[in-house]
């Protein structure tokens, strides 16, 4: 009896989630790609051609022949989009470096803490991650506003005599991205640093390394997998970030996630929004595939 049941069960276990992901993850990408080749139209849905399989194969073929790369030429021809892509990459890269500079000492300090404290510290890093992203970004508006808490505090101290303009600038975006993605940086770093054998550092110091040199020659190279994983986890989502540039950034800040959003919701140009999405995906494919390789390797080494 059970020998008969097993194959059916395993088929269900494999195919139900598999088909779900095929239908709701993979197929939608092909639809995005298809629409990126279509033309904008004043209709519902607002693009042409629409493929209607009920009208037979010839009609479908005719629709397909109307596809064009116009939207891609349009995106490449307009410096607005190119600048948005470039500035997204730049903002994501700078934020990743800043997150690493803040996250590394934090993760390092956690691994050096007394063992009884470590799990509490770890939970304290994870807790903000569970708290709403939107709320955490919102909290910064009240702090960074010209009449906000930071300026009030600095004016009170007498450090400045004019309120600083931080909200609606790139600085605010850096703060927002670093703040919201910091746990993603700290956790892999912590995992890498905790596994490390500190007697290696002691050995290096016994052999005459200064603490700084020992860190640079021993600790940092050993934590490199954590550095890479953390950087990818910050960089990849930051490139397509929408909420941070929208709420903290100014009108002059271009980020591709925001461009896609306004192309879709404000201009109602679905084909161009789709082309922007496909190009964004192409930019991110390299880091995403690289990241998955690294993760797969890490999982295999665990087994």
């Amino acid at each position: 009896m059970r020998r008969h049941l097993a194959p059916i069960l395993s088929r269900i276990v494999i195919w139900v989630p598999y088909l779900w992901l095929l239908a709701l993850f993979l197929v939608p990408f092909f639809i995005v790609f298809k629409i990126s080749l279509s033309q904008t139209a004043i209709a519902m849905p607002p693009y042409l051609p629409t493929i209607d399989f009920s009208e037979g194969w010839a009609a479908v073929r005719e629709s397909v022949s109307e596809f064009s790369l116009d939207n891609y030429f349009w995106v490449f021809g307009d410096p607005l989009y190119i600048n948005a892509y470039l500035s997204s990459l730049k903002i994501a890269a700078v934020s990743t470096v800043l997150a690493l500079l803040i996250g590394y000492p934090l993760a390092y300090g956690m691994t050096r803490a007394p063992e009884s404290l470590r799990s509490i510290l770890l939970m304290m890093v994870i807790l903000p991650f569970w708290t709403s992203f939107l709320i955490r970004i919102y909290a910064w508006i009240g702090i960074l506003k010209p009449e906000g808490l930071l300026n009030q505090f600095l004016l009170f101290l007498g450090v400045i005599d004019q309120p600083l303009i931080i909200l609606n600038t790139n600085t605010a975006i850096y703060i927002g991205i670093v703040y919201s993605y910091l746990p993603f940086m700290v956790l892999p770093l912590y995992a890498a640093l905790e596994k490390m054998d500190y007697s290696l550092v002691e050995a290096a110091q016994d052999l005459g390394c200064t603490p700084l040199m020992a860190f640079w020659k021993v600790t940092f190279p050993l934590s490199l997998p954590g550095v890479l994983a953390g950087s990818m986890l910050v960089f990849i989502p930051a490139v397509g970030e929408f909420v941070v540039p929208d709420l903290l950034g100014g009108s002059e800040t271009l980020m591709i996630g925001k461009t896609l959003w306004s192309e879709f919701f404000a201009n109602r140009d679905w084909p161009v929004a789709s082309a922007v999405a496909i190009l964004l995906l192409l930019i991110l494919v390299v880091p995403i595939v690289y990241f998955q390789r690294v993760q797969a390797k890490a999982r295999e080494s665990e087994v």
Partner: protein
Amino acid sequence: MAGSWSRFNIVSLTLGFAFLYLPIVLLVIYSFNESRLVTVWGGFSTRWYGEMFNNRALMSAAWVTARVGFLSATVATVLGTMAAVALTRYSNFRGRLLFSGMAVAPLVMPEVITGLSLLLLFVAIGLDRGFVTVTLAHITFSMCYVAVVVQSRLVSFDRSLEEAAMDLGATPARAFFQVTLPVIAPAVIAGWMLAFTLSLDDLVIARFTSGPGATTLPMRIYSQVRLGVTPEINAISTVLIGIVTFGVITASIFNKRREWRNRQLP
């Protein structure tokens, strides 16, 4: 080792955690501010909590979010656990590579792309945007998080326990539900909580895939935030932060107890 707990480490921990927590703490403090001007302290008051409960749009959005979160987290947990079992137990079936790729990709996919692609799918198949579509969307991305969490637990699970159960006459299904599931239960519960939180938190994908009548709480908060900072938003944020903090702390205490109890066993 204790000597290495140096001043530098204490300073970097203090500054790091101050950066992580100060904004949240300030938000909570100012939710008890009497003044309508969010950044001017006008004395302690719980007035905005009252206003928040009387704000019907906010409350109905909260109700929608609770339902979407509960439903999507539950389905995502079932699907995600199945995916985790499939990926750890069956090393070769047709399309395994594609499957494992799809199970991780949504974790790093920019939300704008996921949202746009799901919306275009729903339009293509003629499904009206609303409660159903936003729930389907949330199931899709959160099941991948569940799969990752459960997979990491399954990898270290000793399969001989399950085989022993089957040798003793249990069907594979029974062996799974009576032996494997209780062992991986903490991971499954953690996966459910993660899925629920992700759903509770999501703005971008919901904005694309939801429709009239199914405005979620983040969507409502977002449209109010765009008009400016209001003490009411501080109040509802504080409530949400309180719920999440309570949940996370309870779960970790529960896990600690369990670990401790397991250690007491011979």
